[in-house]
């Protein structure tokens, strides 16, 4: 069996939070012991609310942040900070906001060609050809090559960001909320593009999103994060049909599909997101969980295998009762 293209082993990212000159700094566990595997060619969606640690994982995979503890493996080999540049050829990002992720003073062809320059790939003429090819692939016209980002719409800018990510022919693309800053009609175009690029280039996606409808559309597998930990992982169909973790169920219940008559659901979550500097003991979700029992307030639930996935919950929902 081949090694997964990406693997996280008990990865943690802890930030010290200063509490003044003499007090011991508090610790904020943005990512608190995550084990996750991404197989070649699959689209894994990472979902959860803001502050749950999704973007921190993305930044560690990109080598932009170093884990405090744990291991990140690429094709079974440890991600070595000294080899960041080599890794960057294989893992490329697409960020949320195409208004701030593109350098406003460079033309589109300079932006898309920059990774080639950094990695010293090809001659100037070869680079130009590759950039032109990439613009074609993402559906931008040749005349856009000399345009500046501020002359383009949000959808066009996101196409530039995608071209920049793909110009290195990466194996893995990390998409961090790639459509949430875009209008509905533009979002559809970008999602269609991501689907066809995945097919044409055999890409592996880590797709970070808070839009469950988009996740259902795109993902093969879904991992749900809450307060720095993974609470559930399962195949898309399984997770949407039979959520096991009460938080997953609440997330799914919150999806507002365009179906009048169903009304606004009440996800049944009391209270608000806990303070990550002083997380609740036991299961991080218990203050908001209607099913919480004494044990949930004391013991941290460990991941356990259930049919079709993994869930970290002392009292997972039974199949059929969801």
């Amino acid at each position: 069996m081949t090694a997964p293209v990406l693997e996280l082993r008990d990865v943690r990212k802890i930030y010290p939070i200063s509490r003044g000159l003499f007090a011991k700094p508090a610790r904020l566990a943005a990512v608190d012991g995550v084990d996750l595997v991404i197989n070649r060619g699959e689209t894994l969606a990472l979902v959860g609310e803001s502050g749950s640690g999704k973007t921190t994982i993305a930044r560690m995979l990109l080598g932009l942040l170093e884990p405090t503890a744990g291991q990140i493996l690429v094709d079974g080999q440890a991600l070595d900070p000294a080899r960041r540049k080599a890794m960057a050829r294989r893992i490329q990002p697409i960020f949320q906001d195409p208004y701030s992720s593109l350098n406003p003073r460079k033309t589109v062809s300079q932006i898309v060609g920059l990774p080639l320059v950094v990695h010293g790939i090809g001659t100037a003429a070869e680079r130009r050809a590759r950039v032109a090819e990439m613009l074609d692939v993402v559906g931008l016209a040749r005349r856009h090559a000399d345009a500046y980002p501020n002359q383009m719409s949000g959808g066009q800018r996101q196409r530039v960001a995608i071209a920049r990510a793909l110009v290195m022919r990466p194996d893995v693309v990390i998409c961090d909320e790639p459509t949430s800053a875009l209008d509905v009609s533009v979002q559809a175009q970008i999602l269609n593009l991501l689907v066809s690029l995945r097919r044409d280039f055999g890409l592996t996606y880590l797709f970070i999103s808070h839009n469950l409808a988009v996740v259902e559309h795109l993902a093969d597998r879904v991992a749900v994060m809450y307060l720095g930990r993974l609470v559930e992982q399962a195949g898309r169909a399984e997770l949407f049909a039979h959520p096991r973790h009460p938080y997953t169920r609440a997330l799914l219940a919150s999806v507002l599909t365009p179906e009048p008559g169903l009304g606004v659901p009440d996800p049944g979550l009391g209270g608000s997101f806990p303070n990550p500097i002083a997380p609740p003991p036991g299961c991080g979700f218990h203050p908001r969980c209607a099913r919480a029992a004494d044990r949930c307030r004391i013991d941290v639930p460990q991941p356990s295998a259930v049919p079709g996935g993994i869930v970290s919950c002392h009292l997972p929902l039974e199949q059929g009762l969801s």
Partner: protein
Amino acid sequence: MSDPLLEVRDLHVDIPLAHGSLRAVRGIDFHVDRGELLCIVGESGCGKSLTSLALMNLLPSRARRRAAALRFAGQDLTALPERRMADLRGNRMAMIFQEPMTSLNPAYTIGNQLTEALTRHRRVTAAQARDRAVHLLERVGITAAASRLGQYPHQLSGGLRQRVMIAMALMCGPELIIADEPTTALDVTIQAQILHLLRELQREFGMAVVLITHDLGVVARIADRVAVMYAGEIVETGRVDALFAAPAHPYTRGLLACIPVPGRTRPGEMLGSIPGIVPSLTGNLDGCAFRNRCGEARDICARTVPWGHGAGGQAVRCVNAGVA
């Protein structure tokens, strides 16, 4: 039948530019009945937010508003001097904005900001105002309400800040609330909670609500009636069940085809899309503004389009819909 609470006829918002002007809102008509929830939905730049600001007379100073009628509870808002308008605002009509972090004042406590409108508009003592603030904070689901009064906005999470905004809008018991993308900046579970609360409060207090959103899912789940805006105009409006059951305008249909719906769209299949871009809103704008992106456009679309009716009885501005 009684008069609507809010009646808008032929509302225009123009923004003067160096050459000509940007016609951001171009002659829209709508009304809101007492106790009714109307959603105005559309994409960026369609004029939905400027419409909401025009109702409150809070447009940016460069923008020009004109209307054949802008009637709220029998009063003509276009003829109202600013001093009288200020008496209505925050009192009988209140507004909830998208980003509670930028619309709450960071330098004042929650309690200060909550009681301000009430003491401005009503003869109440500070203690009475404080009691009402605590009561409403509890009603919008904030725990330890009394102790929150001394806190500043930055000490609250986004969801809590939006609850504070809602409580603030409710302080004077308004007849109309205008909410501009109130949950767009929030997480999905919090969004559902806040919308659920808004709907509950609206029914409890019998308020009318105009909710501005870009999200058709929100519209379907919360609205009584909906108005779809495109390029400064309303292109389709009617009861929400009728409109979603049989959307009649090609733009509405296009928008609905763009969103993946679990259980309805097949994973990975190509989503619908709307080719082309929104037309420039300067200069001459005759005929249907959507015709350059529309698969069903004909020559006649370049002329003024009359209102017709869709299958569900909703009003549609498209030559291919039955004429009224």
